[in-house]
C-alpha cells in the first residue's frame, strides 16, 4: 500500500507541528509522523497528569480545524524510497510506503551522552531522559538524584525532578563559572528566557550548582548507589538513587544524511533562508538544523511549512510575492533566536576536561559491550566498527558514535537503512519500491 501526501513532516515537536500547520493552511495534504505515541516532542511532552502546555494546546486546536492533516503516531522512518518516498513502520498500521512532493525534516535533537565508569548501571540516565521519564509517569518521590553534564537542560531537569518530589543533591556542570555567569547575565536581553529561568530556579537557592565539574564514576551493585564527582583536584562522593547526565544536544540527522542533505560542521542540516536543504523537495526545521530551542524551532517550522521556492500555492496567486511579505517578520525572529542559541553554545561549549575519554576499561558501545580501550586502538570509526562491532548494535551507533566524535574527532558513518530495528513485514511492504541509493 502506498499513500501519497503533498507534504510529509517527520517529527511532531515545535518545528514539526508549526510546519504541519503552515502547510495545512496552504491547502496541502499533510502527513505528520512521530516515533512517540503523542505529539509535542521532548519539550512539550505530554504524560499522565500533565495537560498539554499552552503553546501545544493552541497548536492542536488549530490543527484540528484542518481536515487535511493525518497524524501517524508511533511511526518510524525505516528507509528512504526512490523517488520521493519513505518506508515507515507504524505501531498501528505496520509497514507503509509513503510518497511526497515535499518532505520537511523536523527530527529534533538527542542528548549527547558521554560515558564514565559505571554509566551502564541501571539508574544512570540522560538529564533530558530523566525529565522525559518523569513526565511519562516514573515515580522519583524521595529519591536522591544527581543531575550532571552541561547546559540549560540541567536546570530544566532539576525543575522537573524537584516538582516530582525528588531530592536533587547537586547539579554538576562541566562549563566554567565565569561563562555560565556571563550567560546568566545575557538573559537580561531576552526577557522571555529570563522569566523561564527565574520560574525554573525559584526555590532552588539551596541546591548545589557545581561548575567546572564532571561525574567521574557511578558505583553500585546491580544499580547506582553512589556517584563520584571531580571538582578540580577534589573528589566528592554522594549517595544517590539516580544519576542523570547529559552534555547538551546533538541534531538528529540520520534521515537527512541518508537522503544526501549537506550537514554543517556543528552536525546540523544545512538550510537556506526558506529552510530548504541541499536536496530538492526536502526542507528542514528546528533542532535538526542546529540546536536553538523551541522558539527558534517554531519559527523555522512555520517558514518550512510555507514551502517557499517550491510550488506551494493552491490559489494561483503569486506565491513567492505573498510569501516574502509573510517571511520578513519570521526571518527577523529567526535571527533573534539564533543569536540566543549562539550564546548558549558559547556558554556551555565542551571544555577540554569533558573531551578526555574515560579509562580504557569503560564501555563506550553499550549495545555490543565494547570498551574505550578497544575502540581507541583504531585509526577511524570504520576500522573500529569492523574490528570491534562498536556502533553496530541496536542503536546503530547513535550513542557511542556521538561519544567517539567528541573523544577522537571521528565523523559518524553514513547511515544505512533500516535506520532502526524493523519487522520483516515492514521490509516486505517495500517490495516493488526501489530503495533510494545515493
Amino acid at each position, binding site marked *: 500500500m502506498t499513500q501519497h501526501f503533498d507534504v510529509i513532516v517527520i517529527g511532531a515537536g515545535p518545528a514539526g507541528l508549526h510546519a504541519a500547520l503552515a502547510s495545512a493552511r496552504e491547502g496541502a495534504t499533510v502527513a505528520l509522523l512521530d516515533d512517540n505515541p503523542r505529539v509535542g516532542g521532548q519539550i512539550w511532552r505530554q504524560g499522565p497528569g500533565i495537560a498539554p502546555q499552552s503553546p501545544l494546546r493552541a497548536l492542536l486546536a488549530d490543527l484540528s480545524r484542518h481536515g487535511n492533516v493525518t497524524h501517524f503516531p508511533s511511526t518510524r522512518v525505516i528507509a528512504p524510497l526512490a523517488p520521493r518516498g519513505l518506508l515507515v513502520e507504524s505501531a498501528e498500521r505496520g509497514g507503509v510506503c509513503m510518497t511526497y512532493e515535499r518532505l520537511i525534516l523536523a527530527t529534533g535533537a538527542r542528548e549527547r551522552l558521554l560515558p564514565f565508569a559505571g554509566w551502564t548501571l541501571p539508574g544512570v540516565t540522560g538529564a533530558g531522559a530523566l525529565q522525559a521519564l518523569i513526565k511519562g509517569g516514573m*515515580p522519583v518521590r524521595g529519591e536522591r538524584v544527581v543531575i550532571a553534564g552541561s547546559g540549560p537542560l540541567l536546570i530544566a531537569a532539576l525543575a522537573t525532578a524537584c516538582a516530582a518530589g525528588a531530592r536533587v543533591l547537586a547539579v554538576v556542570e562541566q562549563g566554567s563559572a565565569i561563562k555560565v555567569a556571563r550567560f546568566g547575565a545575557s538573559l537580561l536581553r531576552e526577557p522571555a528566557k529570563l522569566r523561564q529561568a527565574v520560574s525554573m530556579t525559584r526555590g532552588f537557592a539551596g541546591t548545589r550548582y557545581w561548575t567546572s565539574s564532571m561525574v567521574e564514576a557511578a558505583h553500585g551493585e546491580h544499580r547506582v548507589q553512589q556517584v563520584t564527582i571531580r571538582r578540580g583536584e577534589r573528589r566528592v562522593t554522594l549517595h544517590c538513587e539516580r544519576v542523570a547526565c547529559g552534555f547538551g544536544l546533538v541534531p538528529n540527522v540520520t534521515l537527512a544524511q541518508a537522503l544526501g542533505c549537506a550537514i554543517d560542521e556543528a552536525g546540523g542540516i544545512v538550510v537556506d533562508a526558506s529552510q530548504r536543504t541541499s536536496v530538492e523537495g526536502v526542507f528542514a526545521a528546528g533542532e535538526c538544523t542546529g540546536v536553538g530551542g523551541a522558539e527558534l524551532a517554531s519559527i523555522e517550522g512555520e517558514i518550512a511549512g510555507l514551502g517557499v521556492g517550491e510550488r506551494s500555492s493552491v490559489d494561483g496567486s503569486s506565491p513567492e510575492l505573498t510569501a516574502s511579505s509573510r517571511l520578513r517578520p519570521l526571518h527577523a525572529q529567526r535571527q533573534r533566536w539564533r543569536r540566543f542559541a549562539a550564546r548558549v553554545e558559547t556558554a556551555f561549549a565542551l571544555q577540554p576536561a569533558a573531551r578526555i575519554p574515560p579509562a580504557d576499561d569503560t564501555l563506550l558501545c*553499550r549495545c555490543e559491550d565494547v570498551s574505550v580501550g578497544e575502540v581507541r586502538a583504531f585509526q577511524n570509526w570504520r576500522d573500529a566498527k569492523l574490528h570491534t562491532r562498536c556502533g553496530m548494535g541496536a542503536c546503530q551507533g547513535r550513542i557511542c558514535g556521538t561519544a567517539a566524535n567528541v573523544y577522537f574527532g571521528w565523523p559518524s558513518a553514513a547511515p544505512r537503512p533500516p535506520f532502526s530495528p524493523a519487522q520483516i513485514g515492514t521490509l516486505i511492504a517495500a517490495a516493488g519500491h526501489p530503495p533510494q541509493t545515493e
Partner: protein
Amino acid sequence: MSKSGEARVRVMIDGVAVEVDAGTTVAAALVVVGCASGTRLSVRGEPRAVLCGMGVCQECRVTVDGRAHVLACQTLCRDGQVVHTQKVNAP
C-alpha cells in the same frame, strides 16, 4: 502525579499486575513495578535499563503482548497489556 478521577490502566509485567495512570509509559511502569536492577541483559550479561528515555539508545527494549524489541520509553501502557523483561537477577 496520580489524580483522583483520572483513568487507571492495569498491565502485567513479568507476571505482576500493576495499576498506573492512563498515559504512563511502559518505561515508567517498569520502575513502578520495581524493576530497579535492570530490564535487559547486555551481550556480556550485565543488567541494563533505560538510558535516553526518548527512543534512541534501545536499552529499554522489552516484549509487549508477544512482540519483541518494543521500546518501553515510547510505548504507553494499555489496559490488559502483557510486558516481559529479560529476567535480571535482583540484588
